[in-house]
C-alpha cells in the first residue's frame, strides 16, 4: 500500500472524542471495563448514562467515578493515568497484585487500549514503536490485552505520514497475539474475525475503495455495514 495523506480529503475523520464516544456506545450495562491511557479513558465520559459500568483501574480500583472536582481531590486516590478521581457507588479498592489477578484471571469483560498497529489475525502492538531514545511503555497493557474477555482498540486509521495501522502483520513488537476483537478508528468501526478486518461502520463520504487503500490487510464489509455518525463533541 502506498502511503496516503494522514486524513481523507472528502470525508471528515472523527476527532479523539468522537472515537471515544463511539467505543463507549458498545459498552453494555453491567460491564467491567478497563480503559487504557489516552483516548480509551475518554470513553468513560460518553457511555450512555442509564448503563451501569464498572471501570477498572489497574492500580487498584473497580468502579472509577468522574474526575475529582477542584477542592475535593483526595491526593491518594488516583487512577492508572495518575488522575485524581472519585469512586462510583459500589466501588472497591485493592492492591496491585489483586488488581492484576483480576485482569489475568479473565474477569474483565472489555479492555479498551490504544495501539500503534493491529493485525488482521488480532495481534496488537502498543508498547514500543522502536523509536530512538524512546523507552518502552509496557505498564499493564500486556496483562490487559491477554486477560480481558474482549479487547477493543481505539486508534487513528493511519499514521501521520499516511501509512496503515491496520496491517497484515505487525512490524512493531507485539503486546499480545491474536486477541483483538474490534477496532475503532477515525474512519471506521471494524471487527477482527477469521484473519480479516470486517468494516461495520464507515464515516460518511469515505468510499469503500479509500478505506481499503488505507488498510494494509484483508478487509471485508459487513452485510449491514452502515454510516459511522458521531455527535459533535468538544475536546
Amino acid at each position, binding site marked *: 500500500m502506498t502511503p496516503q495523506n494522514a486524513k481523507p480529503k472528502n470525508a471528515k475523520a472523527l476527532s479523539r472524542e468522537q472515537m471515544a464516544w463511539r467505543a463507549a456506545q458498545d459498552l453494555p450495562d453491567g460491564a467491567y471495563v478497563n480503559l487504557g491511557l489516552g483516548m480509551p479513558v475518554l470513553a468513560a465520559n460518553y457511555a450512555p448514562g442509564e448503563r451501569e459500568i464498572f471501570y477498572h483501574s489497574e492500580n487498584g480500583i473497580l468502579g472509577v467515578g468522574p474526575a475529582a472536582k477542584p477542592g475535593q481531590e483526595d491526593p491518594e486516590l488516583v487512577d492508572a493515568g495518575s488522575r485524581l478521581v472519585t469512586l462510583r457507588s459500589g466501588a472497591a479498592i485493592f492492591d496491585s497484585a489483586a488488581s492484576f489477578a483480576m485482569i489475568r484471571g479473565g474477569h474483565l469483560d472489555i479492555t479498551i487500549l490504544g495501539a500503534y498497529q493491529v493485525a488482521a489475525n488480532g495481534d496488537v502492538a502498543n508498547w514500543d514503536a522502536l523509536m530512538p531514545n524512546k523507552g*518502552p511503555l509496557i505498564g499493564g497493557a500486556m496483562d490487559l490485552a491477554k486477560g480481558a474477555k474482549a479487547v477493543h482498540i481505539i486508534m487513528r486509521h493511519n499514521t501521520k505520514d499516511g501509512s496503515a495501522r491496520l496491517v497484515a502483520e505487525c512490524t512493531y513488537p507485539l503486546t499480545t497475539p491474536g486477541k483483538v476483537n474490534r477496532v475503532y478508528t477515525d474512519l471506521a468501526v471494524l471487527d477482527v474475525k477469521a484473519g480479516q478486518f470486517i468494516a461495520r461502520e464507515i464515516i460518511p463520504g469515505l468510499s469503500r475503495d479509500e478505506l481499503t487503500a488505507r488498510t494494509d490487510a484483508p478487509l471485508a464489509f459487513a452485510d449491514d455495514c452502515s454510516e459511522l455518525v458521531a455527535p459533535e463533541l468538544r475536546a
Partner: protein
Amino acid sequence: MINKVVGDVAQAMAGVASGASIMISGFGNAGIPAALIRVLSDNDLDNLTLIINAIRRVDECSPALFGERRVARVISTSFRGPDAWPSNFERQWMDGTVALEIQPQGTFAERIRAGGAGIAAFYTPTAVGTPLVEGRELRDFDGQTYVLETALTADVALLRAQKADRFGNLFFQGTQANFGTVMATAATLTIVEVEEISDVPLPPKQVHLPGIYVQRVVQVSRS
C-alpha cells in the same frame, strides 16, 4: 512490648547499605514514600537496585539519586512518563550506565507477591508471543502457552501509608496500597512513612497490611 515506631526518617533508614536491593511502592503520587526516597540519596549509598513501578517519581523526589549515579540496576514496568524527556534515569538508561529489566506490570506484581509468599516461580500467560519472552522457558498447560517467572525479593521495602499503629499495622488511603502490600511481604526490612501514627491499635477490619510485614514506621506528614 512491641513498638515499631521510630523517631525520624534517619533512624527509619538506618542500616540501609550500598549494594542493597530496594523495593519502592507508589502509583502516581499515591503511596510514594517521598521522604524515605530523599533520605536514600542523603546517605552515601551506591550500587543500588531499585524495584519500582513509578521509576520517574524517583527523579522527582530525589534528582541526586540518579544524578550522582548511585543506582546500578532498575526493575520496572515502563518508564516513558508524560513529562519532559529525558529524566536523569532516562539519560543513564540511554548511555547504558543503568541496567534495566522491564516487564509487564502484572508480572512485576505477581513476582513480588511470590517472593513474599514462598512461591519460587509460576507460569503466567502474560507476554507470551511477544519479544519479552524470547529465550525464556515456555510451557503449555491445557493448550495455552505460559512463561515461567521467578519470585522477586529485596533487602528493603519503602512504603507510604495513611495510618499505622505501634504494631506496624497499616491503613491505606485511596489507592495508596498498590505495590506496597506485596513489597512489604517480599523484603527483609520494610520501612513505612505514614501521615499519622494512631495511638490506639487499628481496628482489625481496617488493617490492610498486618504489622508482621513491617519493621519500622515513621511519621511524615504531607499536610
